[in-house]
C-alpha cells in the first residue's frame, strides 16, 4: 500500500483523490445515463412523476418483492453452505483445508452463459438429475423453476463471499480470547455461540451483506434462467432494447442503488456500538485441534457433499467441454478433445488480457479499499462515510449502465500520445472492472480493519511512528488476510465479468476471456468450444487463487518464525 503511505497530502488529500476518482469514473458516467429517471419523458422537465409510475405498476411492486425474497433466501442458503466449510477448515486440523478454501472460491469464477447452460443440463426439468429421478421413481423436482432456480444458482455462486470473509475473521480471532473462555469453563457450542461467532461477526456480516446486495442487484442469473419478474432484469430489459430511452429502466436503477445503500446502512447500524477488535496478534487464529476418527468421517462427508453441490456447475461445464452432443440425456453422447483443440489457438491473447485487466483492477481495488476503510473507520474527516457509500453504490449499478455511461463520458476525451478516445483504450476496461469490483474488496478490508485494535496504532504512534508509518507497518500487515481475501474476490469475479466489458471492448485484440466465451456461445456449434474456453478461465483463476493462498500461508509462517526468533533473542 505504498501509494497510500507515501502520499504527501495526509488523509484529507487521499480522501479527496479517492473522491475525485469515484466522481469521474462512477458518479458522472452514471449520472449521464441516470438523469433520464428524473426527466419528464414528454417535456424533458425535471420531475418525480416516473417514481409515481413505478409504485403504481403492480409488475414493479411484484418485482421488488421477488428481488427481496430471493436476496434474503440466498443469504440463508449461502450461510448454510459456507458456515460448516469455514468452521471445519479454521477450527480443526484438517487435511486439505487449503484445497477446500481454494475450491470454495471456484464458484465465484463462473464464466457467463456456460454456467447456466451447465446447471440446466444437470438440474433442469429435463436435466440429468431429473431424467434419472424420472426413470427410477417417476418424479420431477423443480430445482430450477422460477425463483427457486435463481436462489439455488445465486447461493451456489455467491456463498464464497461468506466463506472467505468468515474464514478470514475466524483466523483473526485471538486465541487468548478462546483460552480465557475455556478457563472460565465454556466449551463446545456455548464457546462457539458466545465467543467465536460474535467475534467473527464483522466477517460474517461483511460476507452476508455482500451476498444480499449482489443477489439483489444481480442481473445475469435471472436473465439466463429467463426469470423476468425481478428488479434488475426489469431495469436491464428496459434499458437495453433498441431505441428505448424509457425512463423506467433508470428509475429502477435508482431504486436499486437507494435500496442497496439502505441495506448497507442497516448492516452498519447492526455493527455499531460493538467492539470486535482484539489487541493481541500473532496467536494466529483459533486453536486447532485434531478430530476423532468418526468426527473426521462426518466432517469429510459434510465437506464432500457440500463441495459436490457447489461445484456442480463446474462438473457440468467439464462434461460439456469434453462432450460431443449433449441433448436430453443424462450424459453427453461421446467424449472428445476437439473442443479444446478448436479454442487453443485463439486463447492466448484472451488469457493475457484477462490476467492483466483483472489483476490490475484487483490491485486498484485493494489499495483503494484499504485507504477508504482506514479513512472511514479511523479518521474524523467530514463526509468520510460518503466514500464508503459511493464505492459500495457501484454494486448497484448495472454493468450496462456503467458501460454506456463510459462511452457517453469518455468517447470525446482523447488519450494523450495515443491519439484515440479514452473510451476505446483498454485501460478503460480496467477502470470499469475496478469500479465494479471495488465494493467486494472494500467490504473485506473494512471487516479486516474492524478486527485491528486502535490501541495498537496508538501504541505505534506513542513510540514515535508517523501516521503513514503506522498504517504501513502495523495496520496493513495486520489486515493482510482481509486484503488478500478482497484481492481474490475482486480478481476472480473481474476475470469473468461481461456486462460492462461487452460495451467497452473496441478491438478483438483487447478482448478478455469472458468476451471470447460470449462469442463462442452464440452458435450451436460453439457450445462445446465455449465450455472449453470457460474451463480454461476457471482453471487459470483457480490456480491464481491457490497460489495467492500459498503466498499468504508462507507469509504467515515467516512472520511467526520472525516473532519466535525475536522472542528468543
Amino acid at each position: 500500500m505504498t501509494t497510500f503511505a507515501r502520499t504527501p497530502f495526509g488523509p484529507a488529500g487521499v480522501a479527496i483523490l479517492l473522491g475525485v476518482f469515484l466522481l469521474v469514473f462512477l458518479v458522472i458516467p452514471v449520472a449521464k445515463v441516470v438523469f433520464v429517471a428524473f426527466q419528464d419523458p414528454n417535456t424533458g422537465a425535471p420531475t418525480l412523476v416516473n417514481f409515481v409510475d413505478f409504485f403504481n405498476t403492480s409488475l414493479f411492486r411484484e418485482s421488488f418483492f421477488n428481488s427481496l425474497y430471493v436476496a434474503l433466501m440466498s443469504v440463508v442458503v449461502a450461510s448454510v453452505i459456507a458456515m460448516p466449510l469455514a468452521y471445519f477448515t479454521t477450527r480443526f486440523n484438517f487435511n486439505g483445508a487449503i484445497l477446500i478454501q481454494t475450491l470454495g472460491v471456484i464458484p465465484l469464477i463462473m464464466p457467463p452463459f456456460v454456467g447456466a447452460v451447465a446447471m440446466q443440463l444437470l438440474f433442469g426439468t429435463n436435466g440429468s438429475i431429473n431424467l434419472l429421478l424420472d426413470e427410477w421413481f417417476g418424479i420431477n423436482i423443480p430445482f430450477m423453476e422460477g425463483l427457486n432456480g435463481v436462489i439455488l444458482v445465486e447461493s451456489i455462486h455467491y456463498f464464497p463471499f461468506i466463506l472467505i470473509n468468515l474464514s478470514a475473521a475466524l483466523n483473526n480471532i485471538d486465541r487468548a480470547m478462546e483460552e480465557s473462555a475455556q478457563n472460565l469453563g465454556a466449551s463446545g457450542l456455548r464457546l462457539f455461540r458466545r465467543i467465536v461467532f460474535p467475534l467473527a461477526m464483522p466477517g460474517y456480516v461483511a460476507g452476508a451483506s455482500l451476498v444480499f446486495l449482489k443477489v439483489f442487484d444481480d442481473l445475469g442469473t435471472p436473465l439466463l434462467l429467463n426469470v423476468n419478474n425481478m428488479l434488475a432484469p426489469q431495469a436491464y430489459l428496459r434499458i437495453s432494447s433498441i431505441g428505448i430511452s424509457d425512463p423506467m429502466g433508470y428509475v429502477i436503477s435508482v431504486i436499486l442503488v437507494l435500496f442497496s445503500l439502505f441495506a448497507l446502512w442497516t448492516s452498519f447500524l447492526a455493527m455499531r456500538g460493538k467492539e470486535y477488535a482484539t489487541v493481541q496478534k500473532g496467536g494466529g487464529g483459533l486453536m486447532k485441534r485434531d478430530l476423532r476418527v468418526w468426527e473426521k468421517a462426518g466432517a469429510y462427508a459434510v465437506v464432500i457433499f457440500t463441495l459436490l453441490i457447489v461445484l456442480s456447475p463446474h462438473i457440468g461445464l467439464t462434461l460439456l467441454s469434453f462432450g460431443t452432443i449433449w441433448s436430453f440425456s443424462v450424459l453427453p453422447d461421446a467424449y472428445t478433445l476437439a473442443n479444446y483443440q478448436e479454442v487453443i489457438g485463439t486463447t492466448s491473447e484472451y488469457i493475457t488480457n484477462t490476467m492483466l485487466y483483472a489483476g490490475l483492477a484487483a490491485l486498484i481495488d485493494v489499495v483503494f479499499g484499504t485507504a477508504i476503510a482506514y479513512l472511514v473507520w479511523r479518521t474524523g474527516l467530514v463526509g468520510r462515510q460518503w466514500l464508503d457509500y459511493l464505492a459500495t453504490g457501484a454494486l448497484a449499478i448495472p454493468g450496462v449502465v456503467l458501460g454506456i455511461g463510459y462511452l457517453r463520458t469518455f468517447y470525446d476525451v482523447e488519450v494523450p500520445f495515443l491519439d484515440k478516445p479514452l473510451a476505446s483504450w483498454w485501460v478503460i476496461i480496467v477502470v470499469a472492472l475496478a469500479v465494479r469490483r471495488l465494493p467486494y474488496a472494500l467490504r473485506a478490508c473494512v471487516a479486516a480493519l474492524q478486527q485491528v485494535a486502535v490501541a495498537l496504532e496508538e501504541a505505534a504512534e506513542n513510540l514515535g511512528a508517523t501516521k503513514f508509518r503506522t498504517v504501513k507497518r502495523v495496520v496493513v500487515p495486520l489486515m493482510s488476510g482481509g486484503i488478500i481475501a478482497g484481492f481474490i474476490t475482486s480478481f476472480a469475479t473481474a476475470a469473468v465479468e461481461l456486462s460492462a466489458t461487452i460495451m467497452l471492448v473496441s478491438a478483438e485484440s483487447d478482448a478478455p476471456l469472458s468476451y471470447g466465451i460470449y462469442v463462442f456461445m452464440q452458435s450451436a456449434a460453439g457450445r462445446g468450444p465455449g465450455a472449453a474456453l470457460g474451463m480454461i478461465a476457471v482453471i487459470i483463476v483457480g490456480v491464481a487463487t491457490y497460489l495467492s493462498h500459498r503466498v499468504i500461508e508462507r507469509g504467515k509462517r515467516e512472520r511467526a518464525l520472525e516473532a519466535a526468533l525475536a522472542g528468543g533473542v
Partner: protein
Amino acid sequence: MNHSSRVLRVVGSWILAAGLLGAAPLTQALEDKLVVVTSFPKDLTGAFKAAFEKKYPGVKVEMLKKKTTAGVKYLQETASNNTSDMFWASAPDAFEVLKGDGLLQKYQVKATGIPDMIGAYPINDPDGYYKGFAGAGYGIMWNERYIKAKKLPAPRDWSDLAKPVYHGHVGMSAPSRSGTTHLTVETLLQGQGWEKGWAEWKAIAGNFNTVTERSFGVPDGVNSGQFGLGVVIDFFGLSSQASGFPVDFVYPSVTTLVPANIAIVANAPHPEAAGAFIEFLMSLQGQELLLNPKIRRLPVRPDIYGKAPADFPNPFKDKSIGAAVKFDVVKSKNRYNLVNSLFDVMITYRLDDLRAATKAIQDAEAALSGKSNAEAQRLIDEAKALVGAVPVDEATALDPDFAAVFKKKRKKATDKVTGRQAEVEAEWDKLVKANYAKAKTLAEQAKSML
C-alpha cells in the same frame, strides 16, 4: 496483450504508409484495416474474414461482436468519434434505426445477378443504405429425442403450437429482446390481422415453457432438451442440425423471408475496404460460403442454389416459402416499440397467469369433448375471448400520436408527447391480469359443470 508487437505494428504501418505515399498513386489500394460491428456467430464471421483476407492480403479484418441491440447502441454512442466501418446483422429494423439516426452511408453494389425480391421482401433498402446478402425465414424447430420421450407429434404450422398436447413444451424469445423474433411476431400479425394474430400468439404463448432473454436462448434450450419446441429463425435450426444435435426444423405456411443485411457506417475510416467487403459478400465466392453447414443461410443469388445440398430450401424456386405474407415494412416500423411493449405486458411478464388460464381452458375443453353442454361451451368461448383480448385496436396502434408514447426519443427539446409509456403499460397490465384471472375462473366453472 503484446505491447511490443503492437508498437512494431504501428511503426510498421507508418513505414508502409510513408512508402505508399512515395509510390502513390499507382493503384487505388484498399486500406490496411476493416472494422466490422456484427451480431453474427463466429462460424459465419470467421469464414468470411478468412476468405476475404486471403483475397486481399493487405487488409486485416476486425470482427467486433456485439448483439444487435448492443451494436446499435455502440454505434450511436461512438458516432462522434467513429472507428467502425460496417454494421453486419440480421434484423432490417436495426438498420432502420441506424439509418434514421443518419449513421449509415449509401453504397451502390456493383455485382450483378441479384434479384430485387426474396420471397415477398425487397432484398435491398429502397433508399440505398443497407444491402441484403442472405435470406432468412422463421419457423419451428424441435428436439427429436424430446418429442419421442414425451410422445409428442412433430409440428407443421403455427396453429399446431397452440394445441393442448404442447402445453409447457414451447420456447420463444421476446420481440423486445431480439430483432428476428420481432419480425416473426409482426409477420403473423400482418398475415392473420391484428386481433386474430394476437389471439393466436397468446394461444401459442399459453403453451410456453419460457420466454428466453436472447434469441439464441431458444435453439440452445431446444438443443439441450430444456424444452422441446422453439420458434426460431431458420439458420438456428439448420445449423444446430448440421452441428449434430438431434433436432429438426420446418417452415410454417405463414412466414416471411427477410434479408440479413450489411451497411457501411457514416464516416467510416476505411471506406474502400468496406466497399470491397460488400462486393465480396455478393460475389459467387462469398455467396457460396453461406452454404457451409455451420452457417446455412439462404443465398440471395439464385445461381448458387445449384451447388447446394439436395434438401436445401430454395426460395427462388419453391414459391411456398415466405410468399404468403406481403410484409409491410412501414406498418412494422410505425408500431415497432408498441408491439414489443404489448408482447411483454401480455405475455413475457404475465406468463404464469397466461399459462394458468390456458391450462384451465384446455382442461375444460378436454372435459367437454364428445359431450354437448351449451352453457359450458359459452363459458369456454368467453374465457378464450378474454385471454385473446388486446387492450388496443389496430387503428390506435397505428395512430402516430399514440405510438409516439413508445418512441420516447424526443428529437428536439421542444417536442411534446402526451402520456407516458409506464402509465399506459400499467393500465394494460391491470386489464390483462384481470382478464387472465377471470378467464381461469370461467374455464374452471365450465369444467365443474361437466
